[in-house]
Structures are given as C-alpha cells and as structure tokens.
C-alpha cells in the first residue's frame, strides 16, 4: 500500500472542490494541497450545469430581494444567516471568476449580461451562453494549474474516511489505474463529492453522481440533513433525462400540454403572460418544484403527450427565432437535435421532469465544518443550509464558489501536525479496507447491475414527485432487502487494473445508504413543503407547527436511520405563504415593501 501525507486533502474535482483548492492555496501558499477525484476534474458533473449563476448585479436589484427569493423558494427551510452570507458574497465570487477568465456573456457595452431565472424576482443570473457550468469548471480547473501547491490525484476513488477520536486523520483511496490502495494522512479533509441523483431511475445526472461522500460521512456518524428534498427539474428529455436548461424559459420558452394550453396558469402561477414577454416569478418562471408538480397533475388528468419514451409536455421556443436561439441556447439546439431529433427553431421539444439535485446532504455549520474535527463538506454533497426544501435555479453554481472559498480557507486554517500512532493508523486503515476486501473476495450470486436497477425503480415509485406512507414504506422494505442482497454481491471482474465493476459495486453501496436516508426522512416528514409533497390525507399542506424543522438522518447499522429534528434559523424573515404569479403581487401590495 502506498502512503502520502498532505496538509489539506480535497475529495472531488468539481466546482466546489476546485474552488476550495484554490482558496486553500491562496490562503497559505506553503501548505501542501491534494485534490483527489474519481474522474479527471473536467469530467465532474458541474460541467453539465447550463443556465447560470446568481448574484445581485443590476442597480434596481438588491441583496434583500435575492435573500427573500431564496428563503421563499426554500419554503422557509433555509438557514437565513447562511442565505444572508451567500447573497452578500455571490457577486464578488462571480467577478473573481471573471478575473480568472470565465467567458461570461456580455452586453454590447462590454458589461456582463444577466438573464431571468425561475423564482427570482429580478434578472440576476450570470451566464456563459447555455454552458455556464462547463465554463466555470474549465476556468477553475485551468486556473488551478497556476498553483504549484495544488497536487492532483486524478482517477483515485475514495474508499473511506479515517476518523480517530472524532477527528479526521486521513482517508483510504484506491488508484483506479492500478487497483493499488493509497493511505493519505491529512488533518483537514474537504468532501466535495457532489449529489446522489443517480439513485433515481430518471435523472439529469452523470453516472458519477452516486452519493459517495454523503454515505461515508454518514457512516461515520455525521448527520445527513433534509435528505427528503430531492429536486425534480421540470425539463429533462424523455428517455435519457438529459437536462434542458431553465434558461429556455428565462429567455421566453413556454410549456404546453397536449391541447397546446399553457397549463401552468392552473397551478397558482398565472395569469398567462404574453408570448415573448416572460415575467419573473410567473408562469414558466415559477420555481422548479411547482412546475414539476404541475406536470404530475397534468399526467394524472391525461393531458400530457404520448412519446415513444413516455409521457411528455412540450417546451416551445420557436417564437424566439433561430438567431436568438443560436446565440443564447446553442447547446440546447445541439442536444435536442442529437437526442430527440428536434430542431427547436421549427418544433417544440418534448420534455418531462427528471431528478436533478439533492437539496440535502452532509450537515455542516455556516463555515462548512462537520461534526468530525477537520472534516469539511461543500457543494451538492453538503447541507450548509442554503436551499431548504427547494433550490432556486442558478443558486447552486454560486454556492459552490462562495462556500468553496469558505471551505478552502477553513480547512487551511485548521491544518495541524496531528500525530496518530502507526498502530492506530494501521487499525483504521484495515477497517476502511474491509468493504473492498469483501467485494474482491465475495463469492455470492448477486449482480451489481440488478440491484442498482431495482434501487432506481423503487426510488422512482415510492419517493418521487408525490409520496405517501404506503409507497415510502414499500421502498424502505425494498431497500432493506437490496442491502441484504448487496452482501451477496459477486464482482465478475477479478482484475486489479481499472476495475470499474468493483467501483460501481462500491458506489452502489453508497447509494443504498443515501437512498434509505431519503426515504426514511420523507416518511417521517408528515407535511408537504417545497419538493417534498405528501398525498396522504392531513399531510398535503405545509405544517409549520410541527415541521418547520430540518430532518437529521443518523446512520444505524442494519436498520433504517434514526431521524432527529433541528430548529431552522428564521431570524430575519418569518414564515409566510409561498406565492407566485399574481398571487405574489397581491401579497406584496398588501404588505408594505421592506427597506433594503
């Protein structure tokens, strides 16, 4: 086994991991920083984000407005102090990226252009055409090459955290190319491992988004917070689930059911806005949870459209015209052509909701610290408290920059010369190598692909856009059974080098734990809030009296997690009805505007 000692270890090479690495390198250039990722950093799923990154930019916008949109968007389950910090720091982070070369789209004057986005009352989303995540990721990756103290461990897979007396002392990883184990000693470790959308059948996520970091922190006793809140993006392509950005609607795209009717006006988002004149927080610019739920109702009513790969509605962009589409949404035109053979200039795009984002994650404080000393978490794998029950589009790219910087600086400041005896390290490493040893030696009859497929199906059935006790209970039973079967896994590929079957099996182990936490938290949240909607009688409404609280899932071996509840920071904006469209305007008119 190889060994390596470093000051700051970052796991995950996406936007959050890279931003942390740069922040740590800038904070203390003398530190040794290692960035470990199971894929080359530019393959990380940040690359697939399309629409943009939010920050208050225009003169008539305000920090208070972005704060209100985010808290209301979260259905009051966001940590308000965290939101306040976020909205105040997002702008300077986007400027920082500009200084690092990000090709932001510009106005004729040379100033940065902003676009409309769902749930935002003012245009404040910075974008680089419709490949914003791609450009942010590549800008960060390329910029990271400037720093001699950032060392990359490309294509290394995290097996476990090494935790001693509630402090992180390192990790155990595997070099994918050789199959050799690598023990890394570090007193600061940042998890930036991304979400877990692949536990669902139908999702916009890359194959790598399997909840690895979440599961590992969770198994070591760190709570997973608000896991029941899983975002369905309203516009994925049928079949593949490939993401069609919300920017399509920000630019004026409309959603139509089988009668050519803009059905969103029937779901508290109206009135219908004139074609080509999108209005913030109205109709197609409502928040993602409400739009995905509206699709579900249309489907129940038989008003969706039959497509060879399932029920869809239409996203119509034709009125925007070829020139504008090619300038603002070139990637969407490319994707629609390649994957559903549609030219958006001449035909509407078939779309349906697809799992997109895990709002919950590893519980951290406002400084990205977990309950394990020296262990930090940031980005989609973490729950710093920004998104609550529903994330607003374009807040997450800004999040990984704002909190990536915080995590990097905190991790750098925390570094210490921890001394752990060799015997302790040996013992921790032995234990950490247990699962991979078991998989390599396993002689059962179960196939990784079958279990993963059944997990994705049961999550879609029991833990989808609408949930009830019966469905969630069935999914929990199914997951418990799959976990038993997982113990009988047989990895057919016995090679050491680049054994992706073995890695998929390990990822599946992570996914099973994360999925179970999602279902258990969903079962016990007996109300409807944001992306978590219950169909059971009495649970169909938000219930602030009992559930204005975060769920905390604690790992328990051989049974579903224990769920605790944690108070929400509502110190700046008390809970109110969450309204969009005209209803929101009436609400605003009836209460005097708050000072900025």
């Amino acid at each position: 086994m190889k060994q390596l000692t470093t000051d700051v270890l970052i796991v995950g090479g996406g936007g959050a991991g890279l931003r942390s690495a740069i922040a740590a390198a800038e904070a203390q250039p003398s530190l040794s920083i290692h960035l470990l990722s199971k894929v080359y950093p530019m393959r990380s799923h940040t690359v697939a984000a399309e629409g943009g990154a939010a920050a208050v930019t225009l003169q008539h916008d305000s920090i208070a407005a972005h704060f209100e949109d985010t808290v209301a968007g979260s259905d009051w389950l966001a940590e308000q102090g965290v939101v306040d910090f976020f909205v105040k720091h997002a702008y300077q982070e986007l400027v920082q990226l500009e200084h690092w070369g990000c090709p932001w789209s510009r106005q004729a004057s040379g100033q940065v252009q902003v676009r409309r986005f769902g749930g935002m009352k003012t245009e404040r989303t910075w974008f680089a055409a419709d490949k914003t995540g791609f450009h942010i990721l590549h800008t960060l990756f390329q910029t990271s090459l400037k720093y001699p103290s950032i060392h990359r461990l490309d294509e290394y897979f995290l097996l476990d955290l090494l935790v001693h007396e509630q402090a992180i002392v390192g990790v155990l990883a595997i070099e994918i190319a050789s199959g050799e184990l690598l023990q890394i000693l570090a007193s600061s470790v940042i998890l930036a491992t991304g979400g877990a959308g692949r536990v669902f059948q139908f999702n916009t996520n890359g194959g790598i988004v399997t909840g690895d970091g979440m599961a590992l922190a969770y198994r070591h006793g760190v709570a997973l917070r608000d896991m029941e809140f899983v975002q369905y993006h309203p516009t994925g392509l049928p079949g593949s689930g490939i993401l069609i950005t919300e920017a399509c609607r920000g630019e004026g795209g409309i959603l139509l059911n089988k009668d050519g009717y803009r059905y969103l006006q029937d779901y508290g988002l109206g009135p219908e806005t004139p074609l080509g004149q999108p209005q913030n927080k109205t109709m197609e610019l409502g928040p993602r949870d409400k739009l995905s739920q509206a699709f579900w109702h249309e489907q129940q009513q038989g008003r969706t459209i039959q497509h060879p790969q399932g029920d869809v509605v239409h996203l119509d962009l034709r009125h925007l015209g070829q020139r504008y589409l090619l300038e603002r949404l070139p990637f969407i035109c490319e994707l629609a052509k390649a994957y559903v053979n549609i030219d958006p200039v001449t035909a509407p795009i078939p779309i349906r909701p697809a799992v997109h984002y895990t709002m919950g994650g590893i519980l951290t404080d406002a400084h990205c610290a977990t309950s394990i000393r020296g262990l930090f978490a940031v980005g989609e794998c973490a729950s710093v408290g920004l998104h609550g029950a529903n994330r607003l589009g374009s807040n997450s790219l800004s999040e990984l920059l704002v909190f990536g910087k915080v995590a990097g600086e905190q991790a750098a400041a925390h570094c210490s010369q921890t001394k752990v005896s060799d015997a302790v390290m040996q013992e921790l490493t032995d234990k950490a190598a247990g699962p991979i040893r078991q998989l390599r030696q396993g002689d059962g009859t179960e196939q990784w692909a079958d279990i993963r497929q059944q997990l994705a199906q049961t999550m879609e059935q029991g833990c989808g856009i609408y949930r009830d006790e019966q469905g969630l209970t069935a999914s929990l039973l199914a997951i418990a059974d799959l976990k038993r079967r997982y113990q009988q896994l047989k990895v057919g590929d016995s090679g050491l080098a680049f054994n992706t079957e073995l890695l998929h099996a390990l990822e599946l182990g992570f996914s099973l734990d994360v999925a179970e936490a999602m279902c258990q938290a969903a079962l016990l949240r007996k109300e409807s809030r944001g992306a978590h909607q219950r169909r059971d009688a009495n649970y169909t409404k938000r219930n602030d009296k009992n559930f204005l609280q975060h769920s905390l899932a604690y790992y328990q071996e051989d049974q579903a997690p224990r769920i605790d509840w944690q108070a929400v920071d509502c110190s700046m904006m008390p809970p109110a009805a969450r309204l969009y469209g005209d209803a929101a305007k009436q609400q605003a008119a009836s209460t005097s505007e708050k000072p900025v």
Partner: protein
Amino acid sequence: MKQPETKPSDMQHLSVAIQRYRPEQDDTPVWQSYQVPYDDSTSVLDALHWIKEHQDSSLTYRWSCRMAICGSCGVMVDGTPKLGCKTFLRDYPQGLKVAALANFPIEKDLVVDMSRFLQHLTTIKPYLIGEPSLVQAGSASAGSDQPSSAALQPQLQSPEQVKRYQQFANCINCGLCYSACPQFGLNPEFLGPAAIALAHRYNLDSRDQGKAERQPALNSKDGVWSCTFVGFCSTVCPKGVDPAAAINQGKIVSTMDGVIQWFSPKQLDATPQEPTS
C-alpha cells in the same frame, strides 16, 4: 441508462465488435463481438452499458454525463474518433467496431492513458496571466448595497472580443483530435491540437497579457511547427472548436515572433518552460 419501452428481446439487434485489452491477461488487444438490442435512440455508450450489464461485466470504458459535455467517452468507431454518447447505432446498419482512442497507450479495453494530454494542457499555461484591469464596469454592476471597490468589478469585454476566442474555449478535452492527429501519433511530445487551441484561446482574450509566456512552448519544435496541417483534428471535433485554425493562426503569430526576435533578441526568452506539474 435508458429504458427502452420495448423489451430487448423484441428489439432489433446489431453486431458490435469491441477491442478488448485486459492488461493482466492479454498480451495484445483482441476483438470480441456482441449482439446488442437497439432502437433509434441507442447510442454507442448505451450499447456499452448494455453489454456491461447483461453480457460481460468486465467491459471497461469511461463515461459520465451522457450529453457530450464531460468529454469522458471518446472511442474509435469504425476507425474514426467519436464520443460514444453522441454516436448512434442507427447510423451503422451493418454493425460497428469500437476500439480505444488511437495514439494513446491503452490501459484497459476502451480506457486510454490521458496523462500526456494533461501534461500538454498544463505546459501552455491555460489561465489568464497579468493583473485584471481595474477599469470600472460602470453603471450596470451591482445593486446599491454591493461593495464598490474597483478590484471587485468585472473587466469590460465586448461581445466581439468574446467572439474572438469563444470557439476555442469550447473544447471539452475529450482527446478525439489527438487520436485524429498523425503527428501526435508519431511524436507524443507534440503539444497537439487541443493544447494549442487552448493557448490560442488565452492569447486571443482581451483580458490576457500572457502571450510572451506561452509563446516559447508554442514556438518550440514540439509546438505549432510540428503540425503538418492534415486538418483531421477539426473534422472529428464534436464541439466545432476547429483546432486546425488555431494552430494555423498560431503559426502566423510564431512567425511574427521570429521577426521581432531578429531585431530585439532579448525581448523574448525562447527557453521552453518546464511543465509545472
């Protein structure tokens, strides 16, 4: 992965031959054929998934996003470099052959060693060099409660200035152009299409002052002059980056550098920079 509505047994099948190489058991790559169910939407990547999940779990390939943006799944399809996720079985009615990207060492099956490629990207210093210009972006930036220090404002860049380099910023680092490049096949030290295009991207950026630092590597024998302008790199690029154009424009810049150097030899340090990592 995609779940076709029809059962695989009712679907059409196609012969997919895959070049296998298992370093622990094969001396040289061997071909293996599979019958894969497909419909109009089945991509080469879907076919690989189907084989891995149903026929041979040891089949090894890279992939992630499924939407032609992460750059992981480059393979040779019938001898041409392609992204597996954006190449469809429907276009190969007679069957197809899938192999690892040419010109790279094979690690296992369809996985190649990309480390040389990463090294070349690093060599050309792909980041903005120089202090940001502190010209205020003016009235458009920031609501009333934003910090107003000049250092925290974006630099101005007109849409025309963005357009000069934008195409070259669209590279997804998939490596297809290196597989298409006969020069890289002969000389792996050649910086190659993507790295030179990326250098060009930064050289063309109005915010950058680093051309002089990048030029030694570009001017060296393994830089732009290694290219014999076959142009296949641009043909296979799945993102329309046109690296061949970048290299050709780079030759013009390199020639200009030569002319300048005759007159003021101290102006540019021609020593190639070592890669930083």
